């Protein structure tokens, strides 16, 4: 142990969104340095929306991300509607809940199959995976297309939805479109089962560090679109108290901020939602969770990948349930609800990577005067850092390549969207 020296300096980690570095330095068995450095440039969206009219913000903020653009759109709309005192109709709420499930499935399929799975299958990327495991890649593309098409039908476009607007929608799906996409989701059960089998065959690293989990929670359903903030440590809080549940601060090693709540860090994302809202999963999703060996409260960050698989299962079931409800109600062409007043509002949505907050202040002309966006990946950076600080001493006797892979996989398990938060881990080992 005393002769162990490790020096890892990964410049730009691959298979995450955005840019981040990993620096690990162990000298004679003592960890001298262990840092997750986020080096992505700031995006300035909160400054961009100041001076803009209320109906413009969601179209601007959806551009924060190309994967979770729907989540940003909906959090933005909710913040604007809360500020302007707008009550949306039950149909609008139903359509948005369908849309957000589409994004969750699309994002999780993308991450689990294209970003995380290559590590477990011994390849560097999806490109060789297409040759070594073509059925796996075809299934991933098929499931992603299914989710993309749902987002297209309900959001007007696969990325950066344009049929959503403050107070409602500008375009509605036809009954034929809803019937067709609902059937495709019912038929996706085979792909879901194969996904479960694939992930059952993978060896998930055993690692634990107890942490606080934070996610939306609701009495109505597995919360993604609506709910209160819930913490495994401190219980339930209104969304308006989000600043007390995030406490962003600047760390010199990172261009993205860190966050803390009851402890020095907390975890947001699929595993947090699973731990806090397990009882609201569909029966089949719970069966899959049991098959994959995930039960609450799990403190292994690598299992976030598995939680994403379970949410994919749940999301597919939910789309069937919610589209059934929509068809039974009938699709009505409703004008968006509009009202303008001065005010401040917070919108929270639990997007694929965790709980997202948009906070807007408008004047009485409906012009934005101030905005604050707290991104889920920002909230996870401190937890990633502390996980690495615990993990490295536990694995430092292993071969360097294995340490590198374990650390990269840990960061990837969080599915960080650094371009939202500000992407790439680059690990360099230096042995002395």
């Amino acid at each position: 142990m005393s002769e162990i020296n490790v020096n890892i300096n990964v410049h730009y980690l691959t298979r995450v969104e955005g840019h981040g570095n990993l620096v690990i330095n162990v000298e004679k068995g003592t960890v001298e340095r262990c840092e997750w450095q986020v080096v992505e440039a700031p995006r300035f969206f909160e400054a961009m929306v100041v001076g803009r009219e209320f109906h413009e913000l969601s179209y601007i903020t959806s551009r924060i991300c190309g994967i979770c653009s729907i989540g940003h759109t909906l959090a933005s709309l909710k913040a604007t509607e809360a500020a302007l005192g707008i009550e949306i109709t039950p149909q609008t709420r139903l359509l948005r809940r369908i849309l957000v499930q589409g994004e969750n499935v699309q994002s999780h399929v993308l991450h689990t199959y294209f970003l995380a799975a290559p590590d477990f299958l011994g390849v560097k990327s999806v490109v060789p995976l297409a040759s070594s495991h073509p059925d796996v890649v075809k299934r991933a593309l098929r499931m992603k297309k299914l989710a993309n098409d749902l987002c297209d039908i309900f959001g007007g476009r696969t990325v950066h939805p344009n049929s959503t607007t403050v107070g409602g929608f500008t375009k509605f799906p036809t009954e034929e479109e809803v019937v067709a996409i609902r059937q495709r989701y019912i038929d996706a059960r085979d792909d879901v089962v194969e996904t479960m089998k694939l992930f059952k065959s993978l060896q998930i690293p055993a690692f634990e560090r107890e942490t606080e989990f934070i996610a939306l929670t609701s009495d109505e359903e597995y919360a993604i679109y609506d709910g209160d903030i819930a913490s495994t440590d401190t219980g339930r809080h209104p969304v308006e108290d989000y600043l007390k549940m995030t406490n962003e601060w600047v760390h010199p090693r990172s261009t993205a901020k860190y966050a803390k709540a009851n402890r020095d860090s907390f975890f947001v994302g699929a595993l947090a939602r699973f731990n806090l809202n397990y009882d609201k999963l569909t029966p089949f999703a719970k069966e899959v969770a049991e098959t994959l060996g995930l039960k609450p409260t799990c403190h292994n960050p690598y299992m976030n990948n598995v939680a994403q698989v379970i949410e994919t299962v749940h999301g597919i079931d939910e789309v069937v349930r919610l589209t059934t409800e929509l068809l039974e109600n009938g699709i009505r062409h409703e004008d968006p609800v509009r009202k303008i007043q001065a005010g401040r509002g917070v919108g929270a949505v639990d997007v694929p990577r965790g709980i997202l907050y948009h906070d807007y202040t408008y004047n009485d002309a409906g012009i934005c005067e101030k905005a604050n966006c707290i991104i889920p990946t920002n909230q996870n950076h401190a937890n990633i850092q502390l996980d690495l600080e615990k993990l490295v001493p536990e694995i430092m006797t292993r071969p360097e390549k294995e340490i590198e892979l374990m650390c990269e996989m840990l960061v990837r398990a969080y599915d960080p969207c650094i371009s939202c938060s500000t992407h790439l881990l680059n690990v360099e080992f230096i042995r002395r």
Partner: protein
Amino acid sequence: MSDQHQVVVVGVGNELLQDEGVGLHVVRALVRDEWPANVRIVDGGTGGYDLVEHMAGAHHLVLVDALAGPGAPGDVVVFRPEDVVDRNADMEESLHEARPLEVLRVAEALGARPPHVTVVGIVVASLEPALTVSPALSARWDTILDAARAAIRAAL
């Protein structure tokens, strides 16, 4: 070529970075032309692996994209992927770097690559943040569009 053979024209690029988005500007102009029923024109954006779904089932894919060179800004270079060497072939990618040539390799492994692929590459002048092409390309716009049209007609 039979009317049943689908020709899919996909423009790709990032329209926030001036000439990087030239492929998108080209297809948005071409879609206003009259084309036979077997021609489908697609705005592929920065679709990455989603582009595989656009090309599946096509007999001929025409990809329109920005090119670093060779040539002067606004030159149009028409080539086949097999005629070039991909210097970045071994680069580990992020989703932001799912480049068209890489996507074609994945499509080929999955049996989704069309039998024929033509790339219409337009040499760029500027990659600065802007929503329109640079003056250098704008000045040659009719020539660029005519070259793209000729490539599509050759694929029919």
